[in-house]
């Protein structure tokens, strides 16, 4: 639903902007991006500078500078922060996401292909995915301890549900003719899976992966809030405990940037992988 809506938005935008030359259009869209942000940052900075000091809201440029200092500062011990905290979080998140995605696609494909399996395990899946993934963190801690493997397993578990549901829907809604075609031409089951079934389900799977990637970051942070010794989430809680508000804001900014990067990365990959899909739909 949302994809068609964005398309109508885009086509209407084309029509509206079609009268102006390209460089003007580019300038306008850059202005639309830069001006509001610059205005907000400017007002924020101004208020902080002019008003009596507000402990909870440091100036925006101080936050940005401090984050830079924290991540890449000249201090030797600080230098490690980028590797020791930032990359730790990213690594755990990526590993958990990958495991959860693979596992989710496998289960989802099985559910999508066989109606019997789907109907048998659907209530179980529906129930398990209704448990907020974060609520299972204490269970994971009790079962697997407080190490990194626990965190990766926890992220993988939480991420997999989005992928399972979307893959099952995508595989289940493939037109029967396409599957029969593979059988008629005696395509081997493995090739049928990789050349027919998975590509046809890809748009749905990607929708699941998009949601899952946002969830992966959230789960990674939550797992670092409880019982961790490194990672951005851990640094954030530490800063809170010591009432270091500037550091806290900087780590929050780091998480925001991370979220932004993940979001745009997945959008980019989706655009590349699913180019055929959108083109084929546009032609009809």
């Amino acid at each position: 639903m949302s994809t068609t809506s964005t398309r109508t938005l885009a086509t209407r935008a084309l029509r509206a902007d079609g009268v102006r030359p390209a460089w003007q259009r580019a300038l306008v869209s850059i202005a639309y991006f830069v001006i509001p942000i610059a205005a907000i940052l400017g007002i924020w900075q101004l208020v902080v500078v002019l008003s009596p000091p507000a402990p909870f809201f440091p100036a925006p440029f101080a936050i940005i500078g401090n984050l830079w200092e924290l991540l890449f500062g000249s201090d030797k011990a600080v230098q490690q922060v980028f590797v020791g905290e930032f990359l730790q979080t990213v690594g755990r998140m990526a590993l958990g996401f990958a495991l959860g995605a693979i596992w989710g696609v496998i289960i989802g494909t099985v559910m999508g292909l066989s109606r019997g399996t789907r109907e048998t395990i659907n209530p179980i899946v529906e129930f398990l995915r209704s448990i907020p993934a974060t609520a299972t963190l204490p269970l994971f801690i009790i079962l697997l301890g407080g190490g990194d493997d626990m965190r990766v397993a926890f992220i993988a578990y939480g991420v997999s549900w989005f992928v399972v549901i979307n893959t099952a829907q995508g595989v289940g809604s493939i037109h029967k003719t396409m599957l029969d075609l593979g059988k008629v031409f005696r395509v081997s089951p493995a090739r049928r899976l990789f050349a027919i079934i998975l590509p046809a389900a890809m748009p749905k799977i990607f929708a699941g992966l998009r949601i899952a990637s946002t969830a992966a970051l959230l789960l990674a942070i939550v797992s670092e809030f409880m019982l961790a010794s490194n990672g951005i989430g851990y640094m954030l809680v530490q800063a809170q405990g010591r009432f270091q508000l500037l550091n806290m804001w900087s780590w929050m900014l780091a998480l925001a940037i991370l979220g932004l990067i993940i979001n745009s990365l997945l959008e980019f990959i989706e655009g590349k992988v699913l180019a055929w899909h959108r083109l084929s739909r546009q032609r009809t």
Partner: protein
Amino acid sequence: MTSTTAPRQARRPSRSGAIWRGVAGVLGLSIVLEIVSRSGIVDQKYLPPFSEVIVRSFTLWGDQQFRDDVASTLLTYLIGLGISIVIAVPLGALFGMSRPIYRGARAVIELLRPIPPVALIPLVLLMLGSGMEMKVVIVVFAAVWPIMFNTLYGVHDVDPYAKDMARSFGIGRFGIIRRIVIPSAAPFIMTGVRISSSIALIVVITVELIAGGAQGIGAYISRLRGSYNDAADTYLSVLAATIMAGLIGLLINLLIGWFERRFFGWEARDSA
């Protein structure tokens, strides 16, 4: 019985067959879990017998503390979702109706939206303490986006000819909004509310779990983990409380799904 219907009616799923298979699946899993635990294949310390977990999840309700925590979670969820709707629907409608306003706000939205809501917990915790307000603020921050974007799409998707026709019949601006824009955008808004509802519940429980001193199911689980007087018994309660959290989530999802089909069922759309 189900096997006779399978080949010819493959395209038309039989409801009773699905229900029976589902029941069989749930029963089968419960029996397997019970046997695996009782026979000692997996240590009972890690996998208590399933029947005991079920019994515990009922006896939990005898605990006044647990009932208070459930009530607190549900209340926060309702307030948070309500405030999100009140904020997101007008904003989404505004953005959907005016392109320049949307383009102006878009940069800020695109920067705010990817921020994981839990990242705000430390700041809000310091500012507001660990009470209800803190939870509500974070829930609203998380739940606003799906409602806002779905409202935007819904308002944007309103048939322009219908609006033109209403205008040529002399209906005023507010009349058009009330009679055409709202009815045609309502199913979209409802979809947003359904998505936000599950996000809100997850975020409520997550915040309770993390933020020390809070109330709610998450806090209940978190407190249990903190008390180490009887490990096996504590673990049983953690399992039971987690299952209860899932059950509450499932009930809310079913309720909202039913509500959506009942009142907004005219809109044919895919189940995504």
